[in-house]
């Protein structure tokens, strides 16, 4: 028994002295609970919407006022030209458009029936449904309130149109998310581990003494994973299109180009991690914890980012997967061309260049 206690003491010493792992073991649940608690809500608030008011009369104004007062919606703009609608959706500025047709009031007056069109961006089917429901409810509310005041009750029927994904298939949502996750995991972790392995084995020194430039060492290590990831991506796409029946509305070449960029971004993250750590275990741990969790939470494919507290929203901007998710959805589901995603592309490219520069600098400092 005494021997067992002695051994037990040693084991406690091991655990307690490894402060970094302790931090993760105790810190992680706290962080997760807080983040999950605050970030995860499927409720949609302050959704940006467009109103096309071609009627421009009392009733439409009243309904618009009600919508404006609702915490679920934030009116981005009120216009009268229906041709703007497509572009607004494609640019991702708004999630829903409410259209009051020109003959709205006359129809109500003469036939006691009016139609309002609700057009939603169904590339995120959950949000689309929710928003359509909220809007319908507000309209019904108005109808009920007004009808108790007038002699001839009227009926307003909202006509709902789900853009890009009329069947509200969830696959549209999670395939881009899974793509981002898989690419990120493979590229970041494998590259980081591969580089750190050279350091651990001692062969890194020999490479550094040789005329082979250090940046080429890193690039050479990243290239096999680049190819692997491209193959992975093709596999995911083939499966999604042929087995899950995901449509690809946009340019496939553009999709490949953007995916290659994202892969390179992830590889750079891997390189960055490898320069900071000296053990393979640490590299793996940081890749998994530091990359996978934020990617799942903050890329936007499981939980809408717009509904998270502001600090978390700002944080989500540095998660490369967030931008890639937007790009993939735009291309695959909305059929948007490069002009619609150049901003996100630029951000990804910027992150890549920044990380590469910092990695090189840190690497050189370590050498001297």
């Amino acid at each position, binding site marked *: 028994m005494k021997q067992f206690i002695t051994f037990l003491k040693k084991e406690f010493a091991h655990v307690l002295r490894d402060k970094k792992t302790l931090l993760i073991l105790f810190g992680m649940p706290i962080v997760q609970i807080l983040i999950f608690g605050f970030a995860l809500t499927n409720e949609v608030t302050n959704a940006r919407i467009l109103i096309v008011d071609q009627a421009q009369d009392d009733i439409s104004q009243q309904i618009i006022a009600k919508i404006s007062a609702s915490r679920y919606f934030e009116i981005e703009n009120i216009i009268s030209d229906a041709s703007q609608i497509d572009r607004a959706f494609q640019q991702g500025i708004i999630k829903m458009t409410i259209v009051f047709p020109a003959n709205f009031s006359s129809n109500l007056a003469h036939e006691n029936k009016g139609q309002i069109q609700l057009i939603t961006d169904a590339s995120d089917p959950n949000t689309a449904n929710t928003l359509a429901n909220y809007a319908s409810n507000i309209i019904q509310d108005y109808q009920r309130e007004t009808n108790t005041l007038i002699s001839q009750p009227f009926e307003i029927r909202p006509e709902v149109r789900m853009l890009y994904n009329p069947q509200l298939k969830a696959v549209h949502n999670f395939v881009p998310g899974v793509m981002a996750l898989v690419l990120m995991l493979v590229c970041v972790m494998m590259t980081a581990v591969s580089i750190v392995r050279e350091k651990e*084995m*001692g*062969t890194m*020194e*020999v490479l550094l*003494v040789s*005329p082979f430039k250090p940046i080429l060492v890193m690039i050479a290590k990243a290239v096999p994973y680049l190819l692997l990831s491209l193959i992975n991506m093709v596999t995911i796409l083939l499966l999604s299109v042929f087995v899950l029946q995901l449509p690809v509305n946009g340019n496939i070449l553009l999709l490949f180009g953007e995916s290659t960029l994202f892969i390179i971004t992830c590889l750079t993250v891997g390189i960055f991690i490898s320069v900071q750590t000296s053990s393979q275990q640490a590299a793996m741990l940081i890749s998994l914890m530091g990359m996978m969790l934020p990617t799942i939470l903050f890329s936007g494919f499981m939980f809408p980012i717009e509904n998270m507290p502001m600090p978390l929203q700002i944080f989500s901007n540095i998660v490369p997967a967030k931008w890639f998710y937007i790009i993939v959805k735009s291309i695959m589901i909305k059929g948007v061309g490069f002009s619609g995603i150049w901003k996100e592309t630029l951000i990804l490219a910027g992150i890549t260049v920044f990380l590469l520069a910092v990695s090189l600098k840190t690497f050189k400092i370590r*050498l001297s």
Partner: protein
Amino acid sequence: MDKVIQTSRLTKRFGDFIAANEITLEVFQGEIFGFLGANGAGKTTAMRMLCGLSKPTSGTATIAGFDIYKQTELIKRNIGYMSQKFSLYDDLTVLENIYFFGGIYGLSNKQLKEKSTELIERLGLKRESSKLVSSLPLGWKQKLSFSVSVLHEPRIVFLDEPTGGVDPVTRRQFWDLIYDAANKGVTIFVTTHYMDEAEYCNRISIMVDGRVEALDSPTNLKKQFNAKSMEEVFYQLARGAKRGD
């Protein structure tokens, strides 16, 4: 005789700690130069500076005639290096390792073919050439590692404790390889803890607490310190050291 290494007051500081203190030495072409010192004396720091792995804080040096600050690329092309951990990839075969290291030093395919055949013959590794390095016994790994480090015929090769952990016979065979290379004109710069190996060198320097405290041939050193063996010389010098185990 050509000076392959020439340093003047080469120093490396880490904050307040002076790891290598005003190292001044010369190594001549074709020499076998032993670099001795207790653990913590600064040998590794000094060698890393000479290899271009770390930038000196002050002082000057030229390696194979190239400046240590401004011409590191040229230095790297003209030196070879064998690290303490043996520098070979365990999960690659013997041939793959030879081709890899030869390749990154810029040897052409033709050269690689010739040299690898020659190397394998000389080391008697014909049957093992397609086997993974991890399957080789330690002694063979060391010999292979050394041969790979001089594959590109550098002017000088740096060996960092190359014979750790093997029996005296194997160590002797290793030194035969070193003599072979030295006869071909390669300068050998070797650090070691084995005092009998110190006797194999043309000249030796002994570092204590960051400084070079002795530099001469083994015979002269033994006379100078009135000692019968290099071990005694070493003991006399290193005994008073403040750093180390």
